[in-house]
């Protein structure tokens, strides 16, 4: 293991940022620090030679989560008077209690870090097995092979979790949201010009990430998050496109990623063939189909999450659920 100067700088910076994030009194400062923290963590993944995780961390862990936090904070600020906050007693713990907690945390932390250091270094895990089975998986990127083939079951269930999250967002609203609302507003010219350049580029990058996933770092989650970024930018910028959907179409889009994965899994099953056991000659195509549909679902679900926490959901009484954005 060779330690270079970059690592020596990165590690303490991460700890310092985390500490500052917890200490900051202003939520906005915390969020900004969180975003920076996320970017640096993704650099750490790069240093650890895990480019797939680095991509996900940068796109989802830092950018998207940051956007969700910021949207939520903005929404809370603008509704500060409307939100009735029940008197929640926040006890100011005594010093003894604080000391007890710090001792507990420090001792747990040191036990954990010591155990990490004593981990055996020569455990290969499943690397060999994955390499030898890679030819049969239909893709060349081992990470994609694990996610969509060897452990496709886990990914299927994770898609279920994402779908579950959107159902929860719906359930938490008193009235069912009809659609995502794009408010025409006076966005600054700079932002609009910026968006005109960035939007097509981002869509391009998203599809590149999706296509490249078969043999290089990339895949549905990264692509979906990138597309969601496009949607979020449009919402925030107030720039627009026509967005006409019936209620069931929106629901269908949420479902399609998880649903198609599930149906493909059940469809290939039968006789000797187990659940999610793709026929070898079809596996490449099936994996791409699953990833493609997942990308669409993921991006819409993420945009809905952002819309839900930043007040962009439309509860309009119109039955058709049609909303038109206004072109900038």
């Amino acid at each position, binding site marked *: 293991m060779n330690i270079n100067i970059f690592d020596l700088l990165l590690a303490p910076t991460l700890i310092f940022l985390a500490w500052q994030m917890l200490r900051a009194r202003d939520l906005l400062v915390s969020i900004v620090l969180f975003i920076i923290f996320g970017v640096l963590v993704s650099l750490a993944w790069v240093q650890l030679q895990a480019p797939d995780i680095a991509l996900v961390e940068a796109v989802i862990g830092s950018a998207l989560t940051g956007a969700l936090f910021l949207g939520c904070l903005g929404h809370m600020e603008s509704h500060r008077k409307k939100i009735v906050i029940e008197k929640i007693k926040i006890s100011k713990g005594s010093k003894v209690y604080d000391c007890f907690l710090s001792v507990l945390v420090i001792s747990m932390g040191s036990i954990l870090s010591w155990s990490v250091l*004593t981990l055996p270094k020569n455990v290969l895990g499943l690397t060999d097995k994955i390499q030898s089975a890679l030819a049969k998986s239909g893709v060349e990127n081992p990470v994609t092979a694990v996610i969509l083939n060897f452990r496709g079951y886990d990914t299927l269930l994770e898609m279920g979790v994402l779908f*579950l999250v959107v159902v929860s967002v719906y359930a938490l609203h008193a009235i069912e949201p009809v659609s995502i609302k794009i408010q025409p507003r006076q966005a600054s010219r700079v932002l609009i010009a910026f968006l005109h350049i960035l939007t097509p580029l981002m869509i391009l990058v998203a599809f590149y990430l999706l296509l490249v996933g078969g043999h290089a770092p990339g895949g549905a989650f990264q692509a979906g998050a990138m597309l969601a970024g496009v949607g979020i930018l449009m919402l925030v910028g107030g720039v627009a496109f026509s967005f006409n959907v019936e209620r069931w179409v929106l629901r269908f889009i949420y479902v399609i990623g998880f649903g198609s994965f599930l149906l493909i899994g059940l469809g290939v099953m039968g006789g000797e063939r187990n659940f999610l056991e793709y026929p070898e000659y079809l596996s490449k195509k099936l994996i791409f189909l699953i990833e493609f549909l997942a990308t669409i679902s993921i991006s819409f679900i993420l945009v809905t999450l952002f819309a839900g926490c930043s007040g962009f959901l439309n509860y309009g009484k119109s039955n058709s659920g049609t909303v038109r954005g206004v072109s900038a």
Partner: protein
Amino acid sequence: MTQIIASHASVWTIMLPFLSGVLCFMAGRRIGTLIGVVTAFILTILTLNLGVSVFQSGPSRYAIGGWSSPLGIDIHLDGLSVLMLGFTAIVGTCISMYAFGYFKDRKGLKKEKNKHYAKMGTYFWPLWFFAWGGLNVLFLSSDIFNIYVALEIVSFSAIALVALKGSVDALLSATRYFFLTLLGSLVYLFGVGFLYSAYGVLDLGLLETVIRPGMISTVAITLMTLGLIIKTALFPIHFWLPPAHANAPAPVSAILSGLVVMGSFYLLVRLWFETFTGVIMPVAGQLLGVLGAIAILGGALQALRQSRLKMMLAYSTVAQIGYMFLLFPLLAGNSIGQGFAWGGGIYFSISHACAKAAAFMVAGSIMYALGHDRIKDFRGLAQRFPIGVFAFALAGMSLMGLPPSGGFIGKWMLLKAAMLTGQWWYALLIVAGSILAACYIFRVLEITLKAANPGEKALHIPLRMQLSSLAMSFFAILLGLAATIPLEILKIDSPVFFQSMEGFIK
């Protein structure tokens, strides 16, 4: 390890709830409800079938994606998992029937309130089926990371279900539940990370063969246990449970107290006594036993102090969870005692699921009729609402541990284990806890038997709700009368030596 390939039926029991959850979401409330009820019955038939096949041909494995462990993920089917699947299906079907009535438009209620129930009913079904599916994944999984994903599904749907009502109380308790259960998941995942980096496998069966005692194993097991304890709400991390369970709509309380708690408890038992048997230190079991003991007494005392029925039942859940954890110290003894401890602990968790689900259903019916659940205003309920009070009394019998109920068998086996392993103080504790349980159950029953206050208005409770709670409580009693069947199933591929139970039941 067995190499018989299980049929695709086990996959269907997992995937059917997800499939119908998606359909419920697409279809909206009216059709969604129908889909939900039909699915519940199909699932019951499927799991009973699965139970019969395990009974006839023994435990089996199924390689998802055809890769088989360690590369892929396996489904593992044995007596314990089939038993859990089966009881989830039975309790789940009764809850579904109950919810069918609960979320319907209520006569004599304002239009706006009915709208609220309609909205809850729309989202109840997809969330509930995802929780059910997650539980089935959990019971069948043979992979510690896959189990983490299953826990995530169960927790997220449970959180949304708690928040379904949308009131300030519900949202606050859901948020607290969210933070704690997420903490539990993360701590568990941390443990999984340690195990994978130390041993390079994730499969439960393979892990069992390679795991060695040592620092890393201890840390990993401690983390995983801690995570699951948070999720099961064992004392001292029980405080999130009562508000979360009490503020949810009645069918949700039944799901949470009956099934979700049972899920994480099952997992602990599975990990401790199969995968980690070689590396667990007996003192750890004793520690869990002490926490369980405090939970039994503290939970019961708190239950006695509550003025609302649902709060009381939620604290009763805290106490009953304590009983389940007596399994851990009692398994440390000789082989005959072990059989009783193992059977007793699991039997107790199943009969608690039935009894507590029934009790929460009745509490929901009472709230439906009266609009509140203040225990002191329950006068005359036995006259007006005989089926419900009868169902509550039956469920109460099981909670107290009176014969012939499932709770009695569970407690009796635990008592026997305590005596056989020479840990008599646990026997005293079981008896004391039962007396306290009797106090809080009879406190409610006594008031319902008093003469009614004249002129009190009550809504008519749909027959569907009444009958489903009655059916559920009958199951709690039936578990005491027909104990041999579940115990025989439990014996299949059991990690603990099991004595023949016939002699003891007579």
